[in-house]
């Protein structure tokens, strides 16, 4: 005690370091949830950030001269995103349609519902790591967004909601290695696999069937299988850039280039 009184600064620093280490461990154990206090702080900061974020984007795009063009462009982007999803869904269902029609009569099959609701949101902040795996959007639980809701944009799958406040949500992208996604190959939906972040800004995965006839350039889309988060079927993930056969695990492993450019995220849509 005497030493602590004589070295107040060092004692204070040591206690702070210890407290921060405990906070980090607790945060890790709770899966990064910030709790009630964290959500309230998030609400306040989002309130301040929203106008500044939108103003900064407006300045970047030329607020005075091109404002209308930018608004129109945003609308077109959203429409383009919807149409791209529609095309993917149509291409997927085309091949299965024949079989499903036959099965429908026998088993009273209802098919997969594709009419998901979507909420458009703006990216208002990125995390401090410059890794682009986490960002904050300006929509939250008030708009129906919930934890593990799937986030997309016109290019494809972005990630899932990690935590949702009343009017903000933290999104963790698929390039984070904690997100595992089941996929199918668009060219042949019978070829199924699982992918996740490779720790270097890309995606890596493996095929469930090691004899699967995949080729470089094959487009991968979500399979619709799996739970929590349940990725809707048909969302584009990326393209295969390399294929290897691992002799030890006897798995066909692949490297994937994500369709989404995570450095340039501005607008996203949350699937509800």
């Amino acid at each position: 005690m005497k030493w602590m009184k004589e070295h107040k600064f060092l004692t204070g620093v040591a206690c702070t370091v210890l407290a921060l280490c405990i906070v980090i461990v607790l945060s890790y154990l709770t899966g990064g949830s910030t709790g009630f206090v964290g959500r309230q702080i998030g609400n306040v900061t989002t309130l301040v950030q929203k106008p500044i974020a939108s103003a900064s984007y407006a300045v970047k795009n030329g607020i005075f001269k091109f404002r209308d063009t930018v608004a129109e462009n945003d609308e077109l982007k959203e429409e383009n995103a919807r149409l791209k999803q529609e095309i993917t869904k149509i291409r997927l269902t085309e091949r299965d349609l024949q079989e499903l029609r036959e099965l429908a009569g026998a088993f009273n099959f209802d098919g997969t519902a594709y009419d998901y609701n979507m909420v458009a949101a703006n990216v208002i902040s990125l995390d401090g790591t410059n890794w682009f795996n986490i960002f904050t959007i300006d929509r939250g639980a008030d708009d129906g967004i919930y934890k593990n809701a799937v986030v997309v944009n016109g290019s494809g799958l972005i990630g899932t909601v990690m935590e949702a406040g009343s009017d903000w949500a933290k999104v963790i992208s698929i390039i984070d290695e904690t997100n595992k996604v089941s996929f199918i190959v668009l060219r042949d939906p019978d070829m199924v696999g699982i992918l996740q972040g490779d720790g270097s800004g890309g995606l890596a995965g493996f095929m469930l069937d090691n004899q699967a006839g995949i080729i470089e350039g094959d487009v991968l889309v979500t399979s619709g299988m799996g739970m929590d988060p349940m990725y809707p079927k048909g969302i584009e993930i990326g393209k295969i850039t390399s294929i290897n056969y691992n002799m030890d695990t006897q798995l066909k492993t692949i490297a994937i280039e994500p369709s989404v450019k995570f450095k340039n995220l501005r607008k996203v849509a949350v699937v509800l």
Partner: protein
Amino acid sequence: MKYRYAVCMFVAALVLQTTLTNIISIFGAVPNLILCLVVVFSFLYDENNYGIVLGVAFGLLYDICFSEYVGIAALAYLVISLAIMLVNFVMNKESVFSVIIVSVGATALHSLMYWSIMAMLGSSYGFVYAMRNLPFYALYNTAVVTGLYSLMIKKVIRHHNDRYYK
């Protein structure tokens, strides 16, 4: 400098960090304004502990609002602030080269600490990937730190021939 002015600067940095800075990114790298303030305050006002106290407080706030896990940024700023206070014994405060060296070192330490802690928490992000933007990141931070240093140094180191010296 009074504490309230320092707090105002950190608040402004917190808000601008996550909004305005994203539109001036180079290869995805943006300046870390809170880190820049921690560096400048630790370098110039080491006796007041501005860097440590405000770095930890705003690091925590930043983590709560924008990061996956809480406490990493706060711990990183604390360690950086302490490191700067230590190197202050051998650095010339009045030399701009000193602050440039400190800024580059602090940026590297920040990236290294972030990567190390995330790796300890199970992240598989590669070292090379985490450090790929470090040159741009260091460049940006050093530019901001040098700017802030130029503005604040005259208030800290006063000379007899300065007009405001009393």
